[in-house]
């Protein structure tokens, strides 16, 4: 019989290989990043545009993004979708504050054919009236459904108070959908897509000739100079409740403006963030879910923009547990500020984070995504070696110091909805 009470011996992760993508010039400022070491037939193409929600009137960026395949003067949206589907391709598009992203997932053999359909669709999109009206109606419906969700209500209010800024903090109302004008959409499209390409990402076993074709097809959209983002936001420390009748749960958001990878405290703060709320065994999960059973889940994160970042705690709890949960979140902040993390807990978090880093570097898709997480900040992959070094050498004292510096309850924007 084996002794099951003894833990098997552990091996440490000493090294992770980070593989850099190949870089090609589309223009003097716009690059194509390519990862060719793909052992199968899959491929992905990402096109980044300077067409985020901070540009234009409220709603415009998101409408244009959703209408990219809505038809040209010679092809209907049905025909475009049919052509792309016939090549087995999956299309995705999304907008964030500072970017718009268009992605294609397809087999490598079909990617160039899909791109040529996509290029025609985006270049010649006609913003046909019936397509715009259909989208406005769909959006209104989605908006009304969203307004029935406590998580959505909390997120909206949180975004306002967190960014506390006329552009970054603005949120759409249903009436905004009424005011969409086709000429505004057309102008935004021309300015920010046809002259707005900022980056191309290609994953798949493509030859140099094929990469050149991608460059040729996308080159005329490239921006002359990449955009800069200068705004800095300061959150409004406050406590807000959004009422929602008959909700059986309350959504909670607690957070503040912080920094991104450019800040020297960023990596160490990530370790603190993990301890507090970013893994299954975190302080908040252990306390609020596994000890008290107030919630199905609670988590923390640091989100990044080009020149800023923010820290966030998010959860949904039983309606009668709102105050108790806020109390426990504050309690966990205080505990990190006043007590040193034990060596055991810190060792566990170190090992866990190194394991996660190993996983994030596994395979060409994961590797490219790691690269894309540092590229916007003009940081290279050596960042991840710094992470390994910082994780290995961080001390309980340093964690406490960062908690005192950044987890001050009075600096937090607190929103509840329920």
């Amino acid at each position, binding site marked *: *019989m*084996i002794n*099951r*009470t003894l*833990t*098997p011996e*552990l*091996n440490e*992760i000493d090294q992770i290989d980070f593989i850099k993508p190949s870089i090609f010039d589309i223009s003097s400022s716009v690059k194509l990043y390519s990862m060719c070491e793909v*052992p*199968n037939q*899959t491929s992905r193409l990402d096109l980044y545009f300077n067409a985020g929600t901070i540009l234009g009137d409220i709603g415009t960026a998101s409408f244009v993004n959703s209408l990219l395949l809505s038809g040209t003067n010679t092809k209907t*949206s*049905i025909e475009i*979708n*049919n052509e792309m*589907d*016939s090549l*087995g391709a*999956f299309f995705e598009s999304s907008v964030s504050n500072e970017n718009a992203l268009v992605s294609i*997932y397809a*087999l490598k053999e079909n990617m160039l054919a899909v791109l040529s359909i996509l290029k025609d669709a985006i270049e010649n999109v006609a913003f046909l009236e019936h397509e715009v009206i*259909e989208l406005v*109606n*769909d959006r209104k*419906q989605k908006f*009304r*459904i969203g307004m*029935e*969700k406590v998580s959505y209500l909390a997120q909206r209010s949180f975004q306002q108070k967190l960014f506390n800024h006329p552009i970054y903090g603005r949120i759409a109302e249903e009436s905004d959908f009424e005011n969409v004008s086709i000429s505004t959409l057309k102008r935004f499209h021309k300015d920010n897509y046809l002259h707005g390409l900022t980056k191309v990402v290609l994953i798949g076993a493509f030859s140099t000739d094929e990469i050149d074709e991608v460059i040729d097809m996308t080159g005329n959209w490239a921006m002359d100079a990449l955009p800069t983002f200068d705004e800095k936001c300061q959150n409004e420390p406050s406590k807000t409740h959004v009422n929602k*009748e*008959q*909700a*059986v*749960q309350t959504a909670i958001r607690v957070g503040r403006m912080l920094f991104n990878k450019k800040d020297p405290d960023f990596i160490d703060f990530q370790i603190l963030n993990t301890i507090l709320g970013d893994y*299954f*065994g975190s302080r908040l999960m252990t306390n609020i*879910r*596994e*000890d*008290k*059973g*107030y*919630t*199905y889940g609670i988590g923390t994160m640091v989100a990044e923009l080009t020149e800023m970042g923010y820290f966030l705690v998010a959860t*949904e*709890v*039983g309606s009668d547990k709102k105050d108790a949960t806020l109390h426990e979140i504050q309690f966990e902040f205080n505990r990190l500020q006043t007590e040193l993390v034990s060596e055991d807990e810190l*060792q*566990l*978090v170190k*090992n*866990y984070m190194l*394991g*996660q880093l*190993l*996983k994030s570097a*596994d*395979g060409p*898709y994961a590797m490219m995504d790691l690269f894309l997480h540092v590229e916007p900040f003009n940081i290279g992959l050596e960042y991840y070696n710094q992470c390994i070094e910082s994780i290995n050498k961080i001390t309980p004292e340093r964690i406490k110091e960062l908690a005192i510096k950044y987890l001050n309850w009075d600096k937090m924007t607190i929103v509840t909805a329920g």
Partner: protein
Amino acid sequence: MIHFERYILKNGLTLLFHKDTTTPLAVVNTLFDVGARDESEEKTGFAHLFEHLMFGGSVNIPDFDAPLQMAGGESNAFTSNDITNYYDVLPKTNIETALWLESDRMLSLAFTDKSLEVQRNVVIEEFKQRYLNQPYGDVWLELRPLAYTKHPYKWATIGKEIKHIEEAKMEDVKAFFKKHYCPANAILCIAGNFEFEEIKALVEKWYGDIPAGIKPARILDAEPIQEEYREKTIERAVPTDAFYYAFKMPERRNELYYIADLLSDALGRDKSARLYVSLKKEQQLTAEIGAYITGSMDDGLLIISGKLNEGVSFEQLDSALWKELESFKQAEISEAELKRMMNKLRTSREFEEQGLLNRAMNLCHFELLGDANGINEEHQIYEAIQPSHIQETAMHILKKTNCSLLKVKAISNDK
């Protein structure tokens, strides 16, 4: 081609091994052949509650997650109406930690009162978060008992009602473990850069002495053939009317299952599918519409669901939908339409097979169906499907007497 080896331990545990030399990670996936369909009608939601308890410490190890995290790994699980699946992903050099933890919880649990009490609350919050506090969240709680009258698919994995979870007792938990969590009822798949002999030896070391137990016989109430159209309307404080047409379709092991899968793709997988083009784009009746299958082991459902546009009535939608389904049954789909669906399937499969965890999970799933090698044969079944097969299946499935319709009528939230 996904290669694998198989080895069956004396206690009945099936081991599958999949070698991948390109990754520094290992996956340990354990499928237990138990799901919500194995519950009794008076104690539903139990398979899923039990999944939560599997993380509450085992007989020799007080905490499951912490040692795995210490080894750089992480773990999660899911329960469906058919199966319960647990997985660990960790650096390959620490694989033994996962085997130590997984084998100990297969041997026996700690069964602490605290764990039961807390996980009952956690699951109740999960019930609220996913099913009660979301617009349209309770649709499956209503649709299942409409579509199924006898078979245990008539309740959802989360359970029929919160009360069943509140009433779960320690003796139920222990009995459930004893009956379903034995080696003979499990399929273990290990994937990573290892040698098969090395894995066999490790698995023998950690799992070999777990008592065999008896694989429980599964005798479920068969669902009688549906012979009448069913319809139910519920009123909810949601912004928009929504519809769910549920058609009975063949069980997972039936060849017709694959044809029904393609049928659902043709009707509503993507933006070039029949219903999307006709009812949304051309007739402007719906804001959303799609079709999919539940993929269940026993008789499943093909679902057509969506949301109405403002000003459109359920009756308008109903007549337009049936007209579209009738015309679909009248003529075979074109070769081009079939090819489009096959191309989409192929892309999805290639992407899915990229992930080590997906491969390990799918191998276990196919082994449960009868043979893990099914993972390599499935595409041949799809490729043999002709337009005439889809038409025949459509005629068989898409008829009123085989349909249960749930309508969610939007009413104002104001009192």
